[in-house]
């Protein structure tokens, strides 16, 4: 019995303590969120995952920054210049930037050698950096990484003096500035990283800060807290004093409710409850759309089918090599109805008619997607019932006797992603209804939730697949990677009837030609031509751009630094916590204004 008493006493004590609880929170500017995906490391030189360099982006600065319209601004570099063919770039560093420890104590100045040390770390294969492939743009970077060259002095980066760093590149790279925004070009204090070795970036103590925030608490799967760095060179622009990330595995379920109760300041609202929010007067004013990002989503038609014999890969191969068949699928996909599974209110806002999204790059104020070869494609919805049926008839005649109908179309999806599962069902039924089950038989199959890409996409175990790709630097060539020879997507180089005299495919030649051109206007024109060819031949069906649906947030997204690639979008610098969240009307208005101002800013910047 005594045991019981002990336990009882413990509980009483516990309860009393609980009742005495006081929640003391001073009114400094604070931004609180819950998250469900934990970061695995703080080592920004190693990771390539967005949520990881999102943390680093706020703690370490790179050479350049962007303003909220996407115009390049000085960061750690005050000024810079490039030689004529854009192969040698020289940067002058500012002299008031400092490295501080987790306690905010000054450790050292940020000097040119830090950039050399950073790149050295990334290109050293034994450090297992997953962004090294970007850094190979630097001269001899690839050779050093592969171990063909052992002296780092041969690699194209030099600290000319304490405040000057010079990059020599493998090939002309007019868009090099945009790459600097990637974590692999970030500086690191050589002495510190050598001391810490493998432990660098494992805890907040094993990390040096030169950015806007210092990590005050880092307990994975519990909480992490960023506080403003008081020694930061640009601290007047840091408006939020403290950022609290609270871990919650169930964030998707719990976050909307937490937001309503004022326990957090931002939450994404899942599609399934969005109706409810818009119907409720009180909730309606707090929810808004999100800004689109630059991930591109498309349906890839596979030219190298390796799937199971029961789904008739050979038959699919015959069918997919017929342009009319491809075109019939191309025009039959009702992208709006597919998009309703994510965005039921403004589905058209997320659709993209091209592989390269809008607003990515421009030639003198003309958006890339509006360049001559792409205009007709970008301004027209690919979904067209009549055309689809017309091509269906053509394909049926052309393939009669060669392929068996209905053609089995294996369309796998990742079982771990419910939205994708829903979408696959929608697409299956919509296309079969339109084209008829005597023509195509779309087979929706659940793929594994772990290792989906290596199990399904890369081995070619699909006929039609929704795939995506994110850009890495400000040049249209970044969107051609999946479809050129080394791509692991749908292998369009295996399409029959497109070989040219030099043994390469038409598409490959178009891309190669574009890559060799340095003049921006011409270069973009050629890339646009290649992309138009890819879409026109219906090797892929462009579908949408990325966007996280709806959210309730007390941040104003238009105050944030803006850029399609690298770490910029993750920075809190320049943003502030609003009194109340933006409503969707306010968001739309602000978006329109921002787009106008941005066009102006970009036009000004180019002068």
């Amino acid at each position, binding site marked *: 019995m005594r045991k019981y008493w002990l336990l009882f006493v413990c509980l009483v004590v516990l309860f009393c303590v609980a009742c005495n609880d006081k929640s003391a929170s001073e009114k400094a500017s604070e931004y609180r969120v819950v998250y469900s995906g934990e970061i695995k490391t703080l080592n920004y030189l190693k990771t390539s995952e967005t949520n990881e360099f999102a943390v680093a982006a706020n703690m370490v600065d790179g050479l350049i920054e962007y303003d909220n319209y996407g115009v390049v601004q000085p960061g750690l570099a005050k000024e810079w210049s490039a030689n004529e063919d854009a192969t040698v770039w020289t940067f002058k560093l500012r002299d008031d930037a400092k490295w501080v420890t987790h306690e905010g104590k000054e450790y050292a100045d940020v000097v040119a050698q830090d950039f050399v040390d950073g790149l050295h770390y990334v290109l050293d294969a034994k450090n297992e950096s997953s962004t090294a492939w970007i850094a190979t743009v630097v001269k001899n970077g690839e050779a050093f990484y592969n171990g063909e060259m052992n002296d780092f002095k041969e690699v194209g980066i030099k600290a000319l003096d304490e405040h000057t760093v010079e990059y020599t590149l493998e090939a002309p790279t007019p868009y090099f500035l945009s790459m600097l925004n990637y974590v692999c070009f970030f500086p690191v204090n050589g002495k510190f990283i050598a001391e810490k070795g493998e432990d660098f970036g494992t805890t907040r103590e094993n990390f040096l800060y030169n950015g806007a925030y210092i990590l005050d608490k880092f307990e994975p799967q519990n909480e992490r807290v960023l506080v403003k760095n008081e020694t930061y060179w640009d601290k007047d622009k840091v408006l939020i004093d403290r950022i609290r990330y609270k871990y919650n595995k169930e964030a998707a*379920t719990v976050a909307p409710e937490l937001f309503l109760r004022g326990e957090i300041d931002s939450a994404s609202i899942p599609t399934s*409850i969005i109706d409810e929010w818009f119907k409720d007067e009180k909730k309606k004013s707090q929810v808004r759309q999100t800004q689109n990002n630059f991930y591109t989503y498309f349906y890839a038609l596979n030219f190298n089918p390796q799937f199971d014999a029961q789904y008739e890969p050979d038959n699919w191969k015959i069918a997919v090599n017929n342009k009319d068949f491809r075109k019939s699928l191309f025009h039959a996909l009702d992208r*709006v*109805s597919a998009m309703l599974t994510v965005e039921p209110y403004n589905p058209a806002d997320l659709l993209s008619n091209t592989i390269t999204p809008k607003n990515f790059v421009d030639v003198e104020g003309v958006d890339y997607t509006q360049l001559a070869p792409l205009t007709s494609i970008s301004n027209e919805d690919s979904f067209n019932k009549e055309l689809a049926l017309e091509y269906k008839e053509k394909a049926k005649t052309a393939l009669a006797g060669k392929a068996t109908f209905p053609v089995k179309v294996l369309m796998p999806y990742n*079982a*771990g992603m419910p939205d994708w599962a829903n979408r*696959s069902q929608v697409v299956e*039924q919509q296309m079969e209804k339109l084209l008829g089950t005597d023509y195509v038989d779309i087979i929706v199959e*659940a793929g594994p939730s772990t290792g989906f890409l290596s199990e399904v996409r890369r081995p070619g175990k699909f006929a039609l697949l929704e795939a995506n790709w994110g850009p890495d630097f400000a040049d249209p060539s970044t969107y051609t990677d999946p479809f050129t020879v080394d791509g692991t997507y749908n292998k369009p180089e295996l399409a029959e009837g497109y070989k040219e005299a030099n043994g390469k495919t038409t598409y490959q030649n178009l891309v190669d030609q574009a890559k060799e051109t340095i003049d921006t206007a011409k270069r973009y024109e050629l890339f646009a031509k290649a992309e138009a060819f890819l879409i026109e031949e219906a090797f892929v069906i462009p579908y949408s751009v990325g966007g996280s649906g709806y959210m309730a947030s007390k941040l104003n997204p238009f105050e944030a630094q803006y850029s399609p690639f690298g770490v910029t979008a993750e920075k809190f610098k320049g943003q502030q916590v609003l009194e109340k969240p933006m409503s969707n009307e306010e968001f739309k208005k602000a978006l329109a204004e921002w787009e106008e101002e941005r066009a102006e800013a970009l036009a000004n910047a180019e002068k």
Partner: protein
Amino acid sequence: MGMYTDEINNISNKSRETLFEFAEVDARQAEETGYSNYSYWRSTWQSFLKNRLAVFLLVGVIIIVGFTILQPYLPAQKSPTEIYLDEQTGMQARNIAPSAEFWFGTNSIGQDLWSRIWAGTRTSLFIGCVVALVEAVVGITIGTLWGFSRKLEAPITQLYNVVDNIPTTIVLILMSYILRPSISTIIIAMCITGWVEMARFIRNQIVILRDREYNLASKCLGTPDYRIILKNLLPYLISVIMLRMSLAIPFAIGAEVFLTYIGLGLPISEPSLGNLINEGRVLMMSPDLRYQLIFPSIVLSVITIAFYIIGNSFADAADPKNHV
């Protein structure tokens, strides 16, 4: 003597005619004398019938199971996977509240919840039944071998130690992680751990029973082992086996819900109770959509409670001690 002579004569006269007769040997009647009219199953059934709640639930379960099987063939049923379109807009009929058209409403992409729930129940019950059956067969076989064979005792004990010492949750998670998500994966994952309990129980009972006098006697009379097991030992254990099997079904359904929850369950294009509940959880705080969580939860709870109570009362009823 004289006073009884008449009587005796009288009796002997009568007896010669009617009192004593040689009866024909009748095998059937001879058999009957050795047995009372006690029948194990009839008694079990009779004492089960005394528990009104259990009978009521049994009828309920039979109706539910019958209905899940028959439902797709009934008139006016919709397909569980087809996405219904709104006639006016031509877009998906999303989140429609229960109505005459959609009896339980539709989900977020316009699929009919009524037919999804029954399809889900079908999947879940199927998983539950297969798991229960495999558990019983494997568990009993291994359990008897374990208890009866001295050669196999050590290896099976070691196997048992291995399987039993990893928490069930971990085995479930690991198996679904290594195999692809599908119905067979879930069944395998559950069977791997499921048979253990049953086997151990059977083994313990057999160890207790095998050396009882009647079994020794039977053995001395030359009865083969398999006959001892089948005729002398297993009938003893029927009540417990039935209890375990009826509990295995709700357990399997629960485990399926759990696996779905941590993202290792069935793909959502395959309706199951776990999927439906998991999809519905997000909608908990939305009064208008809450029906998408409540309906599958109710079906799941009813099935679980029913099997649970039926199992318990059947176990009581099957215990011969309660038959007197």
